[in-house]
């Protein structure tokens, strides 16, 4: 009952929160002292990056780990991992795009050889490589196992992306919202907007994931139907 309701509500709530984010971000919050209206990317870029790095990559990693763990091994987990990784590819791309758009006016270039930027791009290649690996394997079981192992190895890179700003001390914004000692650097309505944007994009991820997963299930059903057909045809090969 609750599950059904929450599923029903996921879409509308996501849209509502996204709309709220845009309204707050574009009209309600004040422009930044230094960056002016550019600072409004604060409500887009960190949220997208957060989803890309932790929510979607995390989902894919956990699903892969669950697949590898003998007791929870099922192709459902494999499917979740695959869908999450696909959505992750999109979000990493969005992170790169929004970051580049932000970087052009602030740093003067679309791209800098900054540790976080580079490691994010590398993470993007990881997701593409994951998809390439899936394409290269026919056998469902083998594919599931190989891609699960690959996803786990790839996950090692997430902390590298996160800590890269501290380790290399380069261009990209360090921890801005929460500093090491727990002090808030952003206040009031801006903080709220930031927070809402995080929730909104997280929900957006789950919405997309569910849509993608459903598509996969539909495909699976269609495959099942064509499988019946293929079985009948194969059996008929015997009788001349």
């Amino acid at each position, binding site marked *: 009952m609750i599950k059904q309701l929450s599923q029903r509500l996921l879409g509308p709530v996501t849209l509502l929160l996204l709309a709220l984010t845009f309204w707050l971000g574009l009209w309600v919050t004040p422009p930044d002292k230094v960056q002016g209206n550019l600072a409004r990317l604060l409500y887009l870029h960190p949220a997208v990056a957060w989803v890309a790095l932790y929510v979607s990559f995390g989902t894919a990693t956990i699903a892969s780990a669950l697949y590898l763990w003998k007791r929870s091994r099922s192709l459902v987990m494999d499917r979740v991992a695959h869908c999450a990784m696909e959505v992750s590819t999109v979000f990493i791309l969005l992170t790169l795009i929004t970051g*580049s758009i932000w970087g052009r006016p602030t740093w003067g*270039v*679309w*791209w800098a*050889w900054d540790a976080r930027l*580079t490691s994010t*791009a*590398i993470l993007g*290649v990881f997701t*593409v*490589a994951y*998809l*390439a690996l899936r*394409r*290269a394997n026919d056998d469902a079981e083998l594919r599931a196992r190989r891609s699960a192992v690959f996803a786990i190895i790839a996950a090692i890179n997430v902390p590298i992306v996160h800590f890269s700003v501290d380790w*290399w001390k*380069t261009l990209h914004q360090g921890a801005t919202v929460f500093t090491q000692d727990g002090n808030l650097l952003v206040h009031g309505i801006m903080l709220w907007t930031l927070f809402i944007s995080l929730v909104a994009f997280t929900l957006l991820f789950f919405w997309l994931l569910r849509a993608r997963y459903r598509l996969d299930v539909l495909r699976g059903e269609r495959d099942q139907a064509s499988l019946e057909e293929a079985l009948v045809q194969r059996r008929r090969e015997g009788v001349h």
Partner: protein
Amino acid sequence: MIRVAWLVAAKDLRIERRSRVLLWQVLPFGVMALLLSGLALGAAHAGHSNAAPGLYYLVMVLVALLMINRSQVIEGSPGTRASVATLGLDPAGVFLGKALALAVELWLTGVVLLAGAVLVLHTALGGTLSALPSVVVTLGALAAAGTLYGALSGGGQGPATLLPVLSLPAFAPLLIAGERSFSAALYGGALLQWWVISLVALVAYLAIGILLYGVLEES
């Protein structure tokens, strides 16, 4: 000769289109290699722009090595080669066809990675565009030379490690010519001269291939 060339090129490209190896494996590799070589130079060379043409061609040579290898591997096992040999295809045509298919693949990847160079290595858009003709010719020469070296290295039957060591010395002049004309297009200099060198290399490799490919085919 031309008929055979079309036939062979169509076959190679069909196999590539089907397997999507180019799109899913070689292209991401190229992007990654571009990122990595940028990184390897480290923050010390923050203004990478000067090194961009060199890095671009370095990556393209690596990409070319993978593609040449693949172009030979799809020719199949010794059994397949024996059968195809009995079709008596004109070797000049086979050479041209394989080189053409390889060139098409290299051009596609080359253009994508040029865009990558503009984005991440900050080459000027105008200059990059004006380097296009020289890139096309240089990559064409790489394709022709690569097809020859692919056959030389035992056509995918020998270990995959023979190709790199054989072909790298031959690619070095192409790499330099390409890099110089790309540099010239970006920062000014004698563009035409290097472009002509690439063109001469292209013609020379095509001529050698047409004349000698038959000699190389597996006996």
